């Protein structure tokens, strides 16, 4: 029998979250973010969180919600624009921000999930990102040593999921969700549609259920669009 990872709701899914933890949040901009888990963490009230997320949401949505409630001590991201509260907290020194190259961010997530404690990448060589890091040349090109992340929880969002934790993402909403799902010690997946194990085609699954500890169908998905750009017919 397939293993059953289903939990009732977001509140149950985030059980164990405590102040001071390091948590990953999937998504790129507002696309594919774990809205329901974020709302539950807000309600939970855990403080001094270190959040690993490519972006930091916008005012009032996405991780912006946890910034407003002052639950975040540190953000580890590649790009944090478009958020006034973020900017205020960062400039006032309330919020600690570590900016790292986007590919390094993704690979440090995958490495954490894949049991690779460290790897060499060319990204950031010769920049302040490389400060204090080991440099080694391979094939005539400089690289720096980067380490796997260590996160207690990872919150990810998928389109469809089954009770065994298998996930399918829609379009570009896959982004960081896959590698972060691999990386969390406890990975919580929220999905738009939850089906019984056996209903998804095993060839169409993007993230195998072994990486997922808890899965639930979200109550509500706002799926806000950050930059609505259109053309005329």
């Amino acid at each position, binding site marked *: 029998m397939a293993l059953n990872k289903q939990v009732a709701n977001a509140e149950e899914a985030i059980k164990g979250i405590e102040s001071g933890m390091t948590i990953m949040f999937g998504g790129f901009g*507002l696309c594919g973010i774990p809205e329901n888990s974020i709302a539950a963490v807000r309600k939970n009230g855990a403080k001094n969180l270190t959040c690993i997320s490519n972006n930091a949401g916008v005012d009032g949505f996405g991780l912006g919600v946890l910034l407003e409630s002052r639950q975040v001590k540190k953000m580890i991201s590649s*790009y944090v624009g478009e958020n006034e509260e973020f900017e205020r907290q960062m400039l006032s020194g309330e919020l600690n921000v570590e900016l790292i190259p986007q590919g390094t961010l*993704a690979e440090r997530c995958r490495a954490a999930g894949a049991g690779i404690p460290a790897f060499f990448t060319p990204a950031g*060589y010769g920049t302040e990102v490389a400060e204090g890091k080991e440099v080694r040349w391979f094939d005539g090109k400089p690289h720096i040593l980067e380490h796997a992340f260590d996160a207690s929880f990872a919150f990810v969002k998928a389109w469809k999921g089954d009770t065994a934790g298998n996930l399918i993402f829609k*379009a*570009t909403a896959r982004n960081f969700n896959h*590698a972060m799902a691999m990386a969390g010690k406890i990975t919580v997946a929220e999905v738009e549609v939850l089906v019984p194990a056996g209903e998804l085609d095993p060839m169409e699954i*993007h993230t195998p259920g072994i990486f997922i500890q808890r899965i639930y169908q979200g109550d509500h998905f706002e799926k806000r669009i950050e930059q609505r750009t259109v053309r005329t017919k």
Partner: protein
Amino acid sequence: MALDKNGIAQRIAQELKHGYYVNLGIGIPTLVANYIPNGIDVEFQSENGMLGMGPFPIEGEEDADLINAGKQTITAMPGAVYFDSSTSFAMIRGQHVDLTVLGAMEVSDQGDIANWKIPGYMVKGMGGAMDLVASAKNIIVAMMHTNKKGESKLLRQCTLPLTGTKCVTKVVTNLAVLEITEKGFKLLERAPGVSVEEIQAATEGRLIIEGEIPEMSL
């Protein structure tokens, strides 16, 4: 006459070759997609996780799950494919992308680039730029030749924090097309009606002028 942003994009589009995978940065680079020469097939990579990026959607057909790296709603072309961020940067780091077009605040005559941070200002982050410039085989910078104060952005040494070192291959500005060589910026083409002297005056880094410098044909 100096080029406008669209002119810069149009000139860069001439660098596209049939069969190229191309990553376009935010700003002027995005406009390059509007000027793909006839008979040339290229595919656009968006580092948030797709190949085969198409134009903006028709109004009413926007999909919150389908955006580009600039977080804009987009569409997918036939033959498109979605993937996760670690695979996306595997493509970039692994040099599978043929051409990267980026904006910049400064470029040095050794090919260093600074485009992510101005000390004293709010820093938003490097996004994927450091991965792109560290790995891409062919990096073209699209930018104005001088900043708003009229100071050259083509320098002997960058003054701003670097995004990458010795990586830029070409610079296309409102005034000129320049190639990075061991001896500095080699002037390849002038914008229509722009003189070599004007380009020289606007270039702080070493400028190499050899023979007659042709005008761009747009």
